[in-house]
C-alpha cells in the first residue's frame, strides 16, 4: 500500500522554485480522440465499423482491414497486467525530474495490449487491474493501471497525484462564497482536506443567509472580492494570488429573461459583466502567478474551475441572455485553458443543469442541490477530467448535443 499523503513540508525559501515542464504532449489528430474522451472522464478506443477490431494505439485506419470507419467507443475498465518495468532514465525534462517511472503492458478483454503507468499499489504481474484514462499535466490522455479493487485513487500514488488536482493540503480560493453554491463549495473544499479556503465576498452590506457561519470554520478566511471591480480583483490577487493553488470561480449572475421578456440591455450586461468579463479579470490577475507555480512542490498551483452552465452549450431561450453570457464564458475558458496549458495548471469547466436556487424557482425538478454542485467540483479535482456535466439534465443535454447540436437547439426552442 502506498503511504497516505502526508502534509507536505513548507517550502524552503532559499531554493529556487521548480519551473513547470510538460510531459510530451504531441499527439496525432487521431490520438486526440483518447484525450477528448478522457477530458470527459471516459475511456474510449477506436473500434472498426467494418471488421470490429478494437484498435490501440489510435491510427487513421484499421490495422486489420484498413477501413477508415473507426468509431470511438467506451471500453471496459478491466485488464490484465502482463509485464512491468521501471524507467530510470529519460531525456524528457518532465520524466527526468520525476524518475523512476513504473510502467507496464496491460491486455484488455477486447483484444489490444496497451502501455500504461502503474499505480504504486498495483500488484506485480500477472494481475487483474483496472484501467483509467487520465489526463497528464500536459492535458493529454494517458492510461493508468490501478488495483482492481475499485477503491484506489490516482491521488494515492504521490507521482500520479500530478494527474489529479486534489485539494488535500492545498489552498483554495472560492471567488463568490456568498451564494448557496459558493457556501457549499467552501464547505466541500474544507471537507476534502484543503488547508485554507479563501471565501470571496462582494457587497458586504448584503447579508446573505448562511454566509456569516463560514467564519466559524477554522480553515476559512474571508476576503473581499468583486469580479465586476478590476481594482478589487487586483487587490485580492496582490494579497493572496501567490498562495492560491486552486481557484474556483463561483461568481454567477443569473436572471431569467429571453430577448423579449425584458426591455433594454442592462440585465444582460450585468450577466456578461460577472459571468464573462469577471472571468477575464480573474484570469488576468490570478492566472499569471498560478502559471509560474505549476510545479511548485507537492502543493503547486494546480487547477482553475469555472462554474459554467449546460446552457453554455446551447441557448435555453427562457434564460436566453444568461445562456449567452455562459457561452461567452465557455469560449473565454478555452482561451484560458490554452494559455495555461504549458504550466500544467488544469482548467476544469463545470456544466451543471438547473441548480435549485431562487433563479430556477419556476423550473420543475430535477434540479441540482448546491451541495451536489460542490461535490461534483471536488470529484473533478480529485479525479482527472476537464469537463464535468453534473446531474441528469446536464447528462441528457450533453448526450443530445454530442449527437445532434442542431436537434438540441430546435428542441429547446419549442
Amino acid at each position, binding site marked *: 500500500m502506498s503511504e497516505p499523503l502526508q502534509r507536505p513540508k513548507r517550502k524552503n525559501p532559499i531554493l529556487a522554485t521548480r519551473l513547470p515542464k510538460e510531459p510530451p504532449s504531441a499527439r496525432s489528430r487521431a490520438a486526440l480522440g483518447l484525450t477528448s474522451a478522457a477530458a470527459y472522464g471516459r475511456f474510449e478506443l477506436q473500434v472498426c465499423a467494418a471488421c470490429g477490431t478494437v484498435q490501440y494505439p489510435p491510427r487513421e485506419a484499421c490495422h486489420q482491414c484498413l477501413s477508415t470507419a473507426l468509431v470511438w467507443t467506451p471500453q471496459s475498465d478491466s485488464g490484465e497486467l502482463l509485464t512491468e518495468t521501471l524507467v530510470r532514465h529519460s531525456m524528457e525534462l518532465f520524466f527526468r525530474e520525476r524518475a523512476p517511472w513504473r510502467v507496464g503492458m496491460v491486455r484488455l478483454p477486447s483484444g489490444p495490449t496497451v502501455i500504461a503507468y502503474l499505480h504504486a499499489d498495483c500488484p506485480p504481474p500477472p494481475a487483474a487491474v483496472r484501467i483509467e484514462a487520465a489526463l497528464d499535466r500536459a492535458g493529454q490522455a494517458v492510461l493508468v493501471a490501478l488495483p482492481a479493487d475499485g477503491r484506489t485513487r490516482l491521488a494515492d500514488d504521490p507521482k500520479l497525484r500530478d494527474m489529479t488536482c486534489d485539494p488535500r493540503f492545498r489552498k483554495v480560493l472560492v471567488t463568490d462564497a456568498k451564494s448557496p453554491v459558493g457556501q457549499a463549495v467552501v464547505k466541500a473544499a474544507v471537507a476534502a482536506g484543503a488547508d485554507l479556503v479563501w471565501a470571496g465576498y462582494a457587497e*458586504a452590506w448584503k*447579508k446573505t443567509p448562511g454566509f456569516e457561519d463560514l467564519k466559524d470554520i477554522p480553515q476559512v478566511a474571508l476576503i473581499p472580492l468583486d469580479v465586476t471591480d478590476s481594482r478589487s480583483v487586483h487587490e485580492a490577487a496582490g494579497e493572496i494570488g501567490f498562495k492560491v493553488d486552486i481557484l474556483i470561480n463561483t461568481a454567477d449572475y443569473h436572471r431569467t429573461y429571453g430577448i423579449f421578456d425584458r426591455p433594454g440591455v442592462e440585465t444582460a450586461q*450585468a450577466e456578461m459583466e460577472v459571468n464573462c468579463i469577471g472571468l477575464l479579470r480573474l484570469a488576468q490577475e490570478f492566472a499569471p502567478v498560478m502559471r509560474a507555480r505549476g510545479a511548485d512542490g507537492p502543493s503547486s498551483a494546480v487547477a482553475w474551475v469555472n462554474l459554467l452552465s449546460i446552457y453554455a452549450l446551447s441557448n435555453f431561450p427562457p434564460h436566453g441572455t444568461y445562456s449567452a453570457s455562459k457561452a461567452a464564458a465557455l469560449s473565454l475558458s478555452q482561451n484560458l485553458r490554452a494559455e495555461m496549458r504549458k504550466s500544467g495548471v488544469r482548467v476544469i469547466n463545470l456544466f451543471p443543469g438547473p441548480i435549485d436556487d431562487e433563479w430556477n424557482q419556476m423550473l420543475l425538478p430535477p434540479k441540482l442541490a448546491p451541495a451536489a454542485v460542490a461535490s461534483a467540483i471536488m470529484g473533478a479535482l480529485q479525479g482527472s477530467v476537464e469537463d464535468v456535466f453534473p446531474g441528469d439534465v446536464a447528462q441528457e443535454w450533453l448526450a443530445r448535443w454530442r449527437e445532434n447540436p442542431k436537434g438540441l437547439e430546435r428542441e429547446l426552442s419549442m
Partner: protein
Amino acid sequence: MTAALTALIGALASGDVRIVDLTQVLSPDFPQITLPPELGQCRPFRLETVSEYDERGGGWYWNNFSCGEHTGTHFDAPIHWISGRDLPNNSTDTLPVRDFVAPACVVDCSAEAAKDADFLLTVDFLKAWEARHGRIPAGSWVLMRTDWSKHTDPVAYQNFDEEGQHTPGPDPDAVRFLVKERDVLGFGTETIGTDAGQAAHFKPPYPCHTYMHGAGKYGLQCLTNLDQLPPTGAVVIAAPLKIERGSGSPLRALALVPKAA
C-alpha cells in the same frame, strides 16, 4: 466684474468665504442603492484603465468609468420620479441653471440619528429649527445633517438587516410641509437616498421622492461634510452633468461658507 463678484473673489482669497466639498469620493468601494435583485439595478461606480504610460498609450494615463446616474454623491431631477415625469424642464439637460447655485438651510439631526438609525425628521422638528434660525426661505435647499457620512464602512453606511435598510430621512408630513408651506428648492441627505431606509413602507412609499419631484423640486444624496456648514448662510453649488433627458447625475457638490460660521 461687478462689485458682488469682485467681493466674492476677494472673500475667497482672504478666507472670509470658504469652500466646503460636500462630495464623497467616486470609488468602486462606495456602495450603491440596493433594490430587490429581480428589479433593474443602479450600476456601481467602476473604473477601467485605458492606458497608464504603457503599451496601451505610452505617454498618458486615463480611465473609462461607468456608473448609474444615481451613484455616489448625486443630484435627483424631477423626472427621476413618476410624479415629476410630465413637468416642464424636468431633466438634467433642461433644468434652469440658476437653480444650481442656491442658499442652504442645514437641519442638524445628528444627535437623533446617532440614537436611532430610523430617525424621521418631522414638521415639529423643522418648526423648532425655524424657531432658532428663522423661517426656511423659498428656493433654498434643506439639507438634513445626520453625520451618516461618517460611517465610512459600507456595511454601517448601508445598515441593512433582514427587513431592509435602516437610515434616517424625512417623514411624509415633513416633506409636504417643505414643499407646500416653504416652497424649498430641494432636499438633501447624507444617506444613500433622500428618503429614509424604510420609506418603501411609508404612506405614500418614498414620500420625499414622490412629493419633491412631483412639485419640480430636487434631491441631493450621499452628501458629506454637512457638519462644516452653518444652519443658515451657506450657498450650495450643485450642477448635475448635462445628460440628455438625464434623471440625475453624480456631481461635485460644493458649499460657499462664510468665515463667521
